């Protein structure tokens, strides 16, 4: 990934003046849009955009065997695809470390915050519901973490719940008709920060991501921090981490409102 020297100089120059390449302040988000139900074939779906970054989350729910250590709970699986159409820098092939990190960090937030009520996904002995969250990056302009967690949360919170109907020895999954909703219990959002020239910024663009030394994603709900991931090779001081946690709690109020509005609460 490359950008012109002049763009780099401009970004750094703006940062020293406490502004961003697009005129934002250090801790401002770009405009956020969130729309649910964009892919009606999926049990749940949502498309989130932050500026030019677009991520589509699709939810599918199947019957599966429970994990050995949690025989009475459902499964949750999160995967991310950096589609080659989303950026000139993405290539075809199996998910690389970036896609795996993205999926795992979003997964940790959802899991730790109990967004899905996993205890209610038990069907019968050796049969539980398995919830698949697939994150499709449709356009890359930085900050995939926050766009992905917004899309994933909104898709889960608005997802249908298939029914399992017994037919003699076996059973079948009913995905249409009069269905309830996937049992959920919480909302989680994330705030991603970067560090340029020892200054902290929120919601870095693709251009800014070329110049950040380190990145911190903080996923939280109303009361607690649920997941954290530091990325890249820079370092953060303890004071910087404290400041970012403070900002994340404040900014996440807006993000939760955006989700609530999108799902019609």
């Amino acid at each position: 990934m490359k950008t012109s020297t002049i763009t780099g100089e401009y970004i750094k120059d703006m940062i020293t003046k406490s502004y961003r390449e697009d005129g934002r302040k250090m801790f401002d988000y770009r405009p956020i849009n969130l729309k649910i139900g964009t892919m009606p074939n999926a049990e749940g779906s949502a498309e989130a955009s932050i500026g030019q970054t677009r991520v589509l989350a699709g939810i599918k729910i199947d019957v599966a065997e429970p994990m050995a250590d949690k025989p009475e709970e459902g499964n949750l699986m999160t995967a991310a695809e950096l589609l080659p159409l989303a950026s000139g820098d993405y290539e075809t092939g199996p998910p690389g470390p970036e896609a795996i990190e993205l999926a795992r960090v979003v997964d940790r937030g959802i899991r730790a915050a109990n967004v899905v009520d996993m205890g209610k996904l038990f069907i019968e002995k050796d049969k539980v519901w398995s919830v698949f969250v697939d994150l499709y990056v449709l356009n890359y302009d930085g900050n995939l973490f926050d766009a992905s967690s917004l899309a994933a949360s909104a898709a889960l919170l608005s997802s249908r719940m298939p029914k399992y109907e017994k037919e003699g020895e076996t059973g079948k999954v009913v995905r249409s008709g009069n269905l309830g909703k996937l049992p959920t219990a919480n909302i989680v959002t994330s705030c991603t920060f970067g560090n340029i020239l020892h200054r902290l910024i929120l919601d870095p663009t693709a251009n800014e991501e070329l110049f950040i030394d380190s990145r911190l994603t903080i996923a939280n709900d109303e009361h607690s921090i649920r997941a954290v991931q530091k990325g890249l090779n820079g370092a953060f001081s303890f004071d910087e981490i404290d400041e970012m946690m403070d900002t994340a709690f404040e900014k996440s109020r807006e993000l939760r409102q955006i989700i609530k509005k999108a799902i019609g609460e």
Partner: protein
Amino acid sequence: MGGGANKPELIVNGKRLDGRAFDELREIKIEANTVKNAVGSAYIEWGNNKILAAVYGPKEALPKHVSDPEKAIIKCRYQMAPFSSLEGHGRTGPNRRATEISKVTRETFENVIQLDKFPGSEIDLYIEVLQGDGGTRAAGITVAAVALATSGIPMTDLPYGVSVGKIGEQLVLDLNMIEDNYSDADVPIAISPRQGKVLLFQMDGSMSREQIMEALQMARKAGEVISKKQRDALRLPYEQIADKYKAVPSNQPQPAQA
């Protein structure tokens, strides 16, 4: 993490299951130069964790398109052996967890290795968890730092890793596997002691802002012990050589037998 059914009591009478205090590390033993073929290597026993780290390079970065004309690249592979856990046979090859840990470990060392000294090169860092008992990524970073130091690759600091967890509302240092499985939060941290800064920082569970700051302070304090173990391991081979030469009679001409 998480727990579910049959959650054991992890704290009894103010002590942890293995008898440790809340801020007490498990026993740590580090040995340098344990893989003869490697340019640098080290082995750590951290509680029941047994981890081997080895460094190859700097050498020409291959394939050509991954090389950077301005600096060396690091290729890092963290892996758990299929026989390393108390559970059944693990999957061989990289899984998603190992891929992520390899990535954050690589990023930790990119901060302290003077990569610009070796343009167009690669440095291979292998971390093999032979036996795992919780906190393997932190122990892996600790032992990899020693392996890199023995390789002579210039570094600006000797980072270390440690994890802090939360059991109920109590913060505890250095979770073992049982604690990790049933804890309410887990925070693996790597610190660069000279910069006093955080190089690896992950968290999973539920914690307040104040608890996270306290966890970072606990990790910093634990560094006094861990950093000393790292330095001692690096010093020991040289001390042994020195002792050996002290024991050998000097090669000065011996006084003639009368």
